[in-house]
């Protein structure tokens, strides 16, 4: 038996208990629970698709443009591929894997875990945080220059930015990630800057300054950990935007490269054949919508629940 703790109150929660507490917060909010369920549903489908899909997603095994029927539950597309299988496999590029180009060092031609949307958001978080922290903490000229540049970037319509990036670098998963990073970073930077402006007035920042800590230490070790809450919620929303962006790019025909299915491309293809087959456009559209709505609900519920019980 372990030695009984002498502490009268159980101050020390184990890591597991603390996690339990966090998870309970999610389930306190009905909105967050529903959102989480919707997101988990697509993750689950994606994982299943890694090992099993009803039919082969990239092969024309069936007749073209079938309506939903007992064999192909969601019908087939204009090349006779099973839509359900393609829908399931389409989750992968968004949420589960990123395909690297053939000439990539070491990992060339292989896929790394984490979907394009997740890496894109991670990229914009990193870039945005660095810029926002510098602007917010250093203020003065740093702030002016960084924020003016980002404002200029925001002034461009996002689609134009996507087109510019892709026109310059060509198609590919990494390019899409880069496009999401560049378009997402200004928003993150603004958020981080405003949070930093608040946190930097706290006394513990003065304490760090009176210790003569370096600017980078203060930004990344003293400030960043304290803004992770709002940043996390924001990044959930951003994953939603990123999925949307991938869909938009796919719809424009400049998104993730074929032949692997992605939802945006599927909508685009189905749109072209909408007069022959009205059914094919619905499943991928719904998939994008539900995943984005799920992430939004989850983020909103989480934010509400965190704010409500803040002391």
């Amino acid at each position, binding site marked *: 038996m372990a030695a009984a703790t002498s502490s009268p109150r159980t101050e020390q929660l184990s890591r597991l208990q603390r996690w339990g507490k966090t998870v309970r917060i999610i389930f306190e909010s009905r909105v967050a629970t529903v959102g989480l369920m919707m997101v988990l549903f697509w993750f689950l489908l994606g994982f299943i698709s890694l090992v099993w899909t009803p039919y082969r997603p990239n092969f024309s095994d069936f007749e073209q443009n079938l309506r939903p029927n007992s064999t192909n539950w969601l019908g087939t597309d204009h090349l006779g591929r099973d839509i359900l299988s393609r829908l399931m496999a389409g989750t992968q590029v968004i949420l589960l894997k990123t395909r690297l180009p053939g000439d990539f060092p070491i990992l060339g031609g292989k896929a790394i875990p984490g979907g394009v949307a997740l890496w894109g958001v991670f990229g914009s978080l990193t870039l945005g945080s660095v810029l926002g922290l510098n602007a917010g903490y250093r203020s003065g000229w740093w702030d002016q220059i960084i924020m003016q540049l980002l404002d200029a970037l925001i002034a461009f319509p996002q689609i134009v930015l996507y087109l510019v990036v892709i026109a310059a670098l060509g198609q590919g998963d990494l390019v899409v990630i880069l496009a999401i990073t560049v378009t997402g970073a200004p928003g993150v930077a603004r958020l981080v800057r405003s949070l930093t402006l608040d946190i930097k007035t706290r006394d513990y920042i003065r304490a760090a300054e009176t*210790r003569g800590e370096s600017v980078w230490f203060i930004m990344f070790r003293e400030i960043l950990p304290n803004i992770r809450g709002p940043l996390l919620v924001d990044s959930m929303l951003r994953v939603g935007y990123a999925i949307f962006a991938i869909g938009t790019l796919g719809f424009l025909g400049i998104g993730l490269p074929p032949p692997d299915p992605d939802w945006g491309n599927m909508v685009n293809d189905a749109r072209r054949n909408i007069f022959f087959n009205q059914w094919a456009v619905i499943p991928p559209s719904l998939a994008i919508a539900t995943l984005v709505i799920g992430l939004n609900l989850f983020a909103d519920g989480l934010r509400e629940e965190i704010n409500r019980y803040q002391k």
Partner: protein
Amino acid sequence: MKSEESVGPPVLKVENLAVAYKVRGGEVEAVQDVSFEIHRGQSLGIVGESGCGKSTVAWSIVNFLGANGYVKRGSIKFQGQELVGKTGEALRRLRGDQIAMVYQDPMQALNPSMRLGDQLREVLTVHRGLSKKEAERRCIEMLERVYMPDAAAVMKRYPHQISGGQQQRVVIAMALLNNPALVIMDEPTTALDVTVEAAVLDLVAELRRDFDTAIMFISHNLGVVARVCNHVGVMYAGEMVERARVGDLYANPQHPYTQGLMRCVPKLGSDKVSSILYPIRGRVPPPDNRPAGCIYGPRCDYAQDRCQHEHPALRPISGVGNWARCHFAEEIDAAAWTPPEEIPIPTIDQPQSDNQPIMQINELSKYYEVRGDSLRDVFGLSQPRYVKAVERVSFTVPKGKTLGIVGESGCGKSTLIKTIIGLEDSSSGEAQFMGFDITGAIQQRDTQLIRELQMVFQNPDSTMNPSYTVGQQIGRPMERFNTVPKNQIRSEVIKLLEAMRLGSNYYDRLPRQLSGGEKQRVGIARALASQPDLVLCDEPVSALDVSVQAAILNLLLEVQQQFGTTLIFIAHDLSVVRFFSDYVAVMYLGQMMEIGPAEAIYAPPYHPYTEALLSAVPIPDPKARQKRIRLEGAVPSAMNPPTGCRFNTRCPRRHLLPDPDICLTEPPWRDVGPDHQIFCHHTVETLSSFDPVIAETV
């Protein structure tokens, strides 16, 4: 004086009130079993430490408990009408017509985007149906009644255009416009400076007599309550533990908690050598985990078996006028109290006074450049203008001693220590610390120099980084300055924690698991971790409750004894500064007005400003005789300070000079005693002739 005794039916009668808040996983009873009544012309003070439920009582009367709070039991009768359960229009009418509230922060009580006149008039046009013109006239009358200079012009201004004290006057005027039967004041002077506070309290006391309203006055400050109330209720952990007339309460407190509170506050004029502060041991129980029996039982020095099982009722104590919630109130003799063993009492031996100066500041100034927003300013073409935050300040601090700096907000005391520690660079003058130059900002300083100068901060909630454990935060300075080998940091931190009277089990705690006092202890430990020679304390106790404040002050004294640390101590509470410091400097508008040994500052000869400050200090003794000096007007802008003596625009002693215009020239530093200097045109003889502010206290 009118109706000192209760006559007729009470204006407000609260009986067995219990208020609960719904929280995650249940509910918390913030207030339990509170009963009191207020009659016309009476003012009931409610005192207690933070979290004892005093504001909750006030909010329950006007049903402002928020979405998750509700009255669980009991009744609130206002002029015979039951208020509990009343909502909507009826309550709204009542609140507007009969009950008025004054809040802590006047800036938040006034709408910043409306002219004051519009806000004031609205009260009368909406609730009384007066015409605009008539309302205007009444508002101006009322503003004049609260001694607002130039009332008609104030009506046209916006809230940000008048000072904080004036804002609070407007709020009070607004509260009184409808001639309400009850005014609830929730810490109305806590956000104000001591001289402004004194004037507002005078006003409250006067209005109570003139308007014959009932006042419920909530405060955490025993001195403030003593000045304006005639009845006092003491609250502790959601219950009222003692209720008495003000004279009885302060002269003869019956409940052990009230007695304990009185021992926690330093008396104005007492110092650390001659008197000791006794903190109350333990801490206030959280509302969801209150002990059975007497709630004060676990902290009480007189607790017996009965206190653990039987909940005492608030009952009249025979022989005195007090009501107390204690089983043994009759048997307890406060005078025979001896401190229990476990309370740490610092021993102060007057140390080896070699008086080696550790820090010498000479004519140090700090100006901030102000940028306008005209086009010329943007291109840097116009004359730069400066806020003269600190102007030509000189002092020395002897090694191992404490220098207290007092002054009202905006006097430059915070800027001064920011400049000393290097968060700001200085504009001109000399500053030396242990022979090193410290006029520059921290980036230009040597690591060893940085190590020797550390700081303790004011706000316990922001002094610690919420993301790191106590151990990590105290260990960081050791790591950074290499004062301790890496593998011994943990044991050193634990040693420090124990010196702060926090056990080693605090090492892995996060700040949110600590109380305010504990956070402040950790803040002190972090400042001491690099073994500095000088620690700057920026209001280290002003955000704490009095019982915790006493413990922290004792701790700082002990630290100073043990490590021989020199301290510079900033506070706005003059009693605390007097108690804690060896030397005191008084600052006004960026300039030092008086500096000298603590005991000399608090007795004549005074600088006229020091005299005014002292006469404004609220003293927790309704019988104390205090000279009444109130400063006129507001502190002038530091961008355009008065020429000569900066205090000349408000000086109450200026007319005593044969030629008052001499104040427009720079006054001389007059030596009035050993190490004691006053910055004034008055001769030492005149200054010495002033009466002491506080007549001989008993």
